[in-house]
């Protein structure tokens, strides 16, 4: 069981900055994120895109903003559970919470902060009729263990990096690899595109472009896919296979958090914006893009503000008897849990004789 003061769900910019604000108040944080790396959308969707409305930064790449936040919160030694999705929350008798992830990791904290942005990133599923029937029964959206495909016939669909890279990888593992893509153009790294072209020429990858998988066949498990060619003369073909792996990137979904009994409006969590961004469940806060209230703006800078306010309220919750006034970092500096100390240089008084 991982124990912490504040459990933050979502390691995007808002969740990361909350670690800093909590650290100033001597509260320890642990973050859970479904993605394998911190940074949320900034790392996953647009790391190389410049942002122009971070106060004090005329221009900063989203990826650099995440790197800076990680550096800023380092003294507060946050814990991370990455690549796992927060699934369930159980309120304990003492008012604290236990949050369990998709992999069964349990986290115990008196305060839970949802900074989940648009939700957890899940593989995008192609709208092929009846595809659910074959999930984990011939169809997978993620490759967990490539050995599953040894000596099997595999069809991969998609035109991005993961479709290219896995086609290359599985070319040496599977009995037969076909890559089906809607166009002739691929948008992956040039190296990968060239490698696929090369493997296709020597017959190690069966490249099927200008085509789409439109249907699946099989009684108990997947047995064949129907591939429709753009070229009407070629029409449709049925291909006997063992596995179909559609790789069309990730898209965010609110997911299990939607079933936690929180008040949801417009796919977002309603919070008390007159005070502390607490949800309808005391002890659970929601900050950043995941919350909603009158006048809500989904901006990183608003998430930062919400994080700071939330931490004041969380402090009161954790320390009901303590009096506290907010201190400026210019006055108190930053005292890390790792023993590090940052503060303004003091003037030296030295007499000159």
């Amino acid at each position, binding site marked *: 069981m991982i124990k912490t003061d504040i459990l933050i769900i979502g390691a995007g910019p808002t969740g990361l900055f909350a670690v800093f604000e909590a650290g100033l108040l001597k509260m320890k944080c642990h973050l859970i994120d479904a993605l394998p790396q911190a940074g949320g*959308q900034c790392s996953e*969707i*647009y790391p190389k*895109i410049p942002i122009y409305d971070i106060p004090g930064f005329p221009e900063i790449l989203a990826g650099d903003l995440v790197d800076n936040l990680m550096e800023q919160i380092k003294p507060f030694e946050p814990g991370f559970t990455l690549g796992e999705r927060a699934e369930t929350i159980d309120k304990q008798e003492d008012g604290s919470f236990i949050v369990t992830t998709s992999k069964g990791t349990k986290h115990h904290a008196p305060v839970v902060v949802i900074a989940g942005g*648009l939700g957890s990133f899940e593989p*995008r*599923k*192609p*709208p092929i009729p009846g595809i659910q029937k074959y999930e984990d029964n011939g169809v997978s959206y993620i490759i967990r263990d490539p050995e599953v495909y040894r000596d099997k016939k595999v069809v991969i669909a*998609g*035109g*991005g990096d993961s479709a290219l890279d896995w086609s290359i990888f599985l070319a040496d593992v599977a009995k037969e690899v076909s890559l089906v893509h*809607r*166009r002739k*153009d691929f*948008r992956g790294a040039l190296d990968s595109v060239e490698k696929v072209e090369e493997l296709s020429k020597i017959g190690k990858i069966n490249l099927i472009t200008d085509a789409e998988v439109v249907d699946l066949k099989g009684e108990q498990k997947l047995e064949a896919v129907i591939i429709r060619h753009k070229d009407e003369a070629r029409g449709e073909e049925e291909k006997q296979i063992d596995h179909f792996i559609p790789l*069309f*990137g990730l*898209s*965010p*979904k*609110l997911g299990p958090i939607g079933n936690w009994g929180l008040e949801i409006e*417009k*796919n*977002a969590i309603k919070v008390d914006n007159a005070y502390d961004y607490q949800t309808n469940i005391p002890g659970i806060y929601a900050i950043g893009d995941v919350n909603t209230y009158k006048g809500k703006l*989904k901006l990183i800078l608003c998430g930062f503000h919400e994080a700071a306010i939330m931490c004041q309220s969380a402090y009161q919750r954790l320390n009901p008897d303590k009096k506290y006034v907010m201190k400026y970092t210019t006055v108190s500096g930053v005292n890390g849990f790792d023993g590090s100390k940052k503060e303004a240089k003091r003037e030296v008084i030295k007499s000159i004789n």
Partner: protein
Amino acid sequence: MSDIKITIIDREGEAHTVDAPTDMNMNLMEIIRSYELAPEGTIGICGGMAMCASCQCYMLNLEHMLPEMSIEEEDMLDQAFLVEDNSRLSCQIRITHELNGLEIKIAPTTEE
């Protein structure tokens, strides 16, 4: 008066003719969101960077008046589902006077 009229058919099939300002640096996706013609969180997820395809629309007329597709838009549509020849990412279409009378249909969401 710098508004134009645009007809938007929502995902339930209902047509809405709305005023769209040409002087606010807005795009079609933002018009759809401002009139709440698709639920928040199901459209314009990436914020308009041509990176998610949640704002895919079918262009029903004025195809010759539309701006050309960027490589980014073409690539993203390529990863999207239910793409037709008249599919565009509405976030990539700026509201200009030429688009007065435009008719579009919001593509179905493939998220269950």
